[in-house]
C-alpha cells in the first residue's frame, strides 16, 4: 500500500549542493521546500575525529554503500556491461550535504568558449574542425548570462582566489584573498613564469580567512590540516552545504529534510510531474509525495536514471543520434600529468588542503590557437598540495617494484621529496558515449541499474599527449631530478568513475537536441527541473561544482517565476518558437 501524503510546493530529490541551493533560495522567497534524502543526517560535529585515511580515504565512510544500486560500464555497445562492485570504484556522496561535504573545493569557472563551444569553434576554425561523431553543442546560455550566478555561488561559498591573464573575466573580485603559497607552489610559479606562463593560486572553497556570506552564514579559515577531499571539515572552513545553504534554508523554518527517503519514480500525467514515489529505506514503506514542482538534485547519473525509470523525455538513441535522455555522457576522471622526484629538496607535503594549489590556464578551452593543434579544447595544469596519505602515496623511481626491500627504501625516501604537476582535460561528447538502463543488473527493488557506455577518443589521447609534455617541462624547470610522465590506458577502465560525470540531461536552446532549457527546466515537463552536471553538454577542463552551482542559482529564479506565474516554459523553444 502506497500512502499518499499532503502536497508540498517544492520537492528536491537529494540535499547536496544543488538541493541545498534550491532549498535556500526558494525558502527565502517564502516557499515550502521538502528535500528527500536517501542518506542520514550529519553535522560538522561528525567530522571531529575524522583524520583517518583508512576510514575515509580507503573505506569511503562518507559515501553511499552500493549494496543495492551501483552502475554498470562497458566501452562500447558490442560489449557486455559489468557492474562496479567495490565502493572504491564508485564513491558517491550521501547524507546531509551529499558530495558537497567531501568535495575538494576547487572552484574554477568555465570559459566563454565553453558555453558557445560549437559556434565559436566553427567561427574560428570552420566546420571541418569538429570531427565526425563529436556531438558538440552550445549550452543555450552565454558566459555573460551565467556570470552573475557564478558570482552568487562564489559569494555564498566565500571562495578564495586571484585572477590571472587567462582566467575568465569577473564582475567582482573573489570574496576572500588567495590561499597561502607553499614552497612547492612557489617553485611552480617561478618555473611557470620562466616558461612564459601566467600561474595563479587556484580558486578554493577552503577559505583563506574567516568569512560571512550574504546569507549571514559564517565560514572559518582553513587550517591546512590536509584531511579535506573525501573528508568533512570539522572547522566549517571548507564551504559545504551544511554550513551554508542548508543552514540558511533551515533558519527560514520553511525547509524539511526527510532522511532515509529513496525516490523510486517521478510521478506524472505525461505533461506535468505530480510528485514522487519514495520508499523509507528503514521500513520499506512506500509513499506518494505530491508537489507543485519537482527538482532533481541528485547525482548526475541518478538524475538521469530517475528520468529513464519514470519514462520522461525522449530517450537517446545512439544509432540515429536522436532523443536526448542519456545523451552526451562525459567522464572527467582522467587526471594525468607528470611526477617529479627531487633528490635535493624536501617538502612539508603532510600539510595541505583540498583546493590548495597553483594553476596555469594557457592551454584550456580556446585560450591557445588550435589552428595547428589536432584536438578541441585542452587542459588546465596544476600543482596541488592536498596532503600526503601514507597508505596510498608511495612515490618511487621508474622501474622500482611495488613491494619488497627496494620499494620500501625508495618510497620512504621520496615520500616528502616528490611533486606532481597534473592536468585535467576538457572532455568532448561523442555520439557513441551515452547512458541508458542496464539490461541485466538490477537494484534491490528490481529496477535496472544505470549503464554507461564510454571510451576514450583520439581527442582525449591527443590532449593527453600534449598536456603531459607541458607538465613535464614545468617539472624539469622546477628542478626535478627525475620526471615521470603519466600514462593513459588504451581504453577507459571505469576506475573511480564516481563524481565528475556530465551529461545525460543536457541543456540547450533547442528542444530537439537538449533535455532542459537554460533554467534547467525540462522542455517536455515544465514543472520538472533537473539540476546538476547532468546538464553539461560537454565537460570543461575543471571541477564541476562552481558551474553546476551557478546554473542551479539561475534555475531557482526560474522556479520562483514559475510558481508566481503559475506555469509555462521559461524559455521559448528555439526550434518551434512556441510561446510561453
Amino acid at each position, binding site marked *: 500500500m502506497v500512502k499518499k501524503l499532503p502536497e508540498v510546493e517544492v520537492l528536491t530529490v537529494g540535499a547536496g549542493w544543488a538541493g541545498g541551493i534550491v532549498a535556500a533560495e526558494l525558502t527565502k522567497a517564502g516557499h515550502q521546500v521538502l528535500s528527500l534524502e536517501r542518506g542520514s543526517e550529519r553535522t560538522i560535529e561528525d567530522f571531529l575525529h575524522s583524520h583517518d585515511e583508512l576510514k575515509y580515504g580507503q573505506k569511503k565512510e562518507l559515501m553511499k554503500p552500493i549494496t543495492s544500486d551501483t552502475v554498470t560500464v562497458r566501452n562500447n555497445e558490442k560489449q557486455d556491461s559489468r557492474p562496479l562492485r567495490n565502493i572504491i570504484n564508485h564513491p558517491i556522496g550521501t547524507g546531509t550535504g551529499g558530495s558537497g561535504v567531501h568535495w575538494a573545493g576547487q572552484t574554477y569557472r568555465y570559459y566563454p568558449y565553453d558555453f558557445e563551444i560549437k559556434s565559436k569553434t566553427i567561427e574560428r576554425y570552420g566546420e571541418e574542425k569538429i570531427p565526425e561523431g563529436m556531438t558538440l553543442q552550445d549550452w543555450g546560455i552565454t558566459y555573460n548570462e551565467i556570470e552573475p550566478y557564478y558570482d552568487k555561488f562564489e559569494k555564498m561559498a566565500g571562495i578564495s582566489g586571484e585572477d590571472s591573464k587567462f582566467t575568465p573575466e569577473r564582475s567582482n573580485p573573489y570574496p576572500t584573498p588567495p590561499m597561502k603559497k607553499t614552497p612547492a607552489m612557489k617553485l611552480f610559479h617561478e618555473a611557470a613564469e620562466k616558461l612564459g606562463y601566467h600561474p595563479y593560486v587556484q580558486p578554493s572553497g577552503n577559505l583563506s580567512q574567516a568569512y560571512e556570506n550574504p546569507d549571514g552564514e559564517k565560514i572559518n579559515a582553513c587550517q591546512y590540516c590536509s*584531511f579535506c577531499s573525501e573528508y568533512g571539515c*570539522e572547522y566549517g572552513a571548507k564551504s559545504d552545504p551544511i554550513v551554508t545553504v542548508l543552514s540558511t534554508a533551515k533558519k527560514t523554518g520553511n525547509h524539511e529534510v526527510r532522511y532515509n527517503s529513496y525516490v523510486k519514480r517521478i510521478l506524472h500525467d505525461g505533461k506535468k510531474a505530480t510528485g514522487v514515489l519514495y520508499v523509507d529505506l528503514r521500513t520499506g514503506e512506500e509513499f506518494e509525495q505530491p508537489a507543485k514542482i519537482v527538482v532533481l538534485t541528485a547525482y548526475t547519473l541518478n538524475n538521469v536514471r530517475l528520468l529513464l525509470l519514470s519514462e520522461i523525455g525522449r530517450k537517446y538513441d545512439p544509432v540515429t543520434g536522436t532523443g536526448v535522455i542519456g545523451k552526451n555522457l562525459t567522464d572527467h576522471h582522467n587526471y594525468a600529468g607528470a611526477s617529479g622526484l627531487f633528490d635535493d629538496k624536501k617538502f612539508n607535503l603532510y600539510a595541505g588542503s583540498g583546493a590548495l594549489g597553483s594553476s596555469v590556464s594557457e592551454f584550456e578551452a580556446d585560450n591557445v590557437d588550435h589552428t595547428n593543434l589536432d584536438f578541441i579544447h585542452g587542459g588546465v595544469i596544476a600543482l596541488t598540495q592536498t596532503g600526503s596519505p601514507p597508505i596510498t602515496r608511495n612515490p618511487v623511481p621508474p622501474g622500482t617494484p611495488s613491494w619488497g626491500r627496494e620499494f620500501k627504501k625508495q618510497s620512504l625516501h621520496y615520500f616528502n621529496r616528490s611533486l606532481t604537476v597534473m592536468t585535467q582535460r576538457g572532455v568532448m561528447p561523442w555520439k557513441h558515449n551515452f547512458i541508458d538502463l542496464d539490461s541485466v543488473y538490477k537494484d534491490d527493488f528490481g529496477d535496472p541499474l544505470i549503464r554507461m557506455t564510454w571510451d576514450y577518443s583520439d581527442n582525449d589521447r591527443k590532449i593527453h599527449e600534449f598536456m603531459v609534455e607541458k607538465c613535464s617541462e614545468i617539472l624539469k624547470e622546477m628542478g626535478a631530478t627525475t620526471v615521470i610522465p603519466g600514462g593513459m590506458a588504451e581504453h577507459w577502465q571505469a576506475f573511480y568513475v564516481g563524481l565528475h560525470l556530465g551529461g545525460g540531461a543536457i541543456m540547450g536552446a533547442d528542444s530537439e537536441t537538449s533535455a532542459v532549457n537554460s533554467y534547467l527546466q525540462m522542455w517536455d515537463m515544465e514543472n520538472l527541473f533537473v539540476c546538476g552536471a547532468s546538464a553539461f553538454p560537454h565537460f570543461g577542463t575543471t571541477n564541476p561544482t562552481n558551474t553546476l552551482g551557478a546554473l542551479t542559482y539561475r534555475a531557482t529564479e526560474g522556479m520562483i517565476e514559475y510558481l508566481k506565474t503559475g506555469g509555462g516554459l521559461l524559455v521559448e523553444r528555439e526550434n518551434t518558437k512556441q510561446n510561453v
Partner: protein
Amino acid sequence: MVDKGTRNEKNIPVNQEVPDSSRRKFLRNTGMVTGGVVGGAVLGGFLGNPFKTEKAESTTTKPVEAHGSASHTEAMQFFTRKEDFDTLAAATEVIFPEDESGPGAIGLGAPYYIDKQLATPWGRNIDDYRKRPFADGATPLTRGDIMIQGIRKLNEVSQVKHKDKFKQLDEEKQIEVLQAFESGEVEMTLVSSAEFFATLRQLTMEGCFADPVYGGNKNMEGWKMKEFPGAYMSYADVIESEEFVLKEPKSLSDHM
C-alpha cells in the same frame, strides 16, 4: 636518505605531555576560543564540547596501558588456524620487510591489523554490490574467502616448488612465489591469484600506515619512517615553511 631523528625512540611520550595544549593553541589560533573572527553560529555546536570536557582530559592523561595492552588485542578474530596466520605474517614481511630504516610489516603489527579487518563487515563485502551474475572474471568470493584461499595456496605452491612451507623459505624463494601470484600465474578457484596478491599488498600497506587504532602501525613507527605526523588538527604553522619540519606524530587517540 630518510632522516632518522626519531626512528629508534620506541616509546614516544605522547601521553606524558599535557595533551590539551596543542588543541588549546589551535583553538586560540583559529579564534575558536575567543570567538574572535568567527561567530558562534557555525562553530557553537561543538565548541568547547569535545575538546574541553573533563572526561576528555582525564582519559588522555591516563597511561597507555589503561586502554588495554597490545598483547591483549593481538589474537585471532578472523583466522581460525594459526598456520594461516603465520603464513600471512611471513608474506606481509616480504612485502614490507624490516631494514635499517625501521620495522617491517610484522614489527608494525600488520598481520593483526589484517586479521581484524577481515573480521569486520568489510571482510564480508557488506557495502559492495553483490548481485549475480559474476561475469568476466568478477569474483563471487568475499575478501575473507579470497585471503584464506590465497594464503593456503601460498603454502601449496611453496611445497610443490620448494618442498617447504612458505614461512620456512628464504626471502629470495618467497619473493619468487609471491611474484607468481602477482602475475596471475597461479591457478586459484573463482578468483585470480593477481587479485589475491593485490588484496594482500593493499592490506599490508594499510597495516603499516593506517592509524594505530586499527591494530597496525604499532607505536606509529610506520608514520615515523615516512616522517608523516598523523592526525594533527592544524598545519597553519608550517604551511609556508621553507624548511622541512619534522613533527612528532599524533594518532586519533590523541583526540579523545
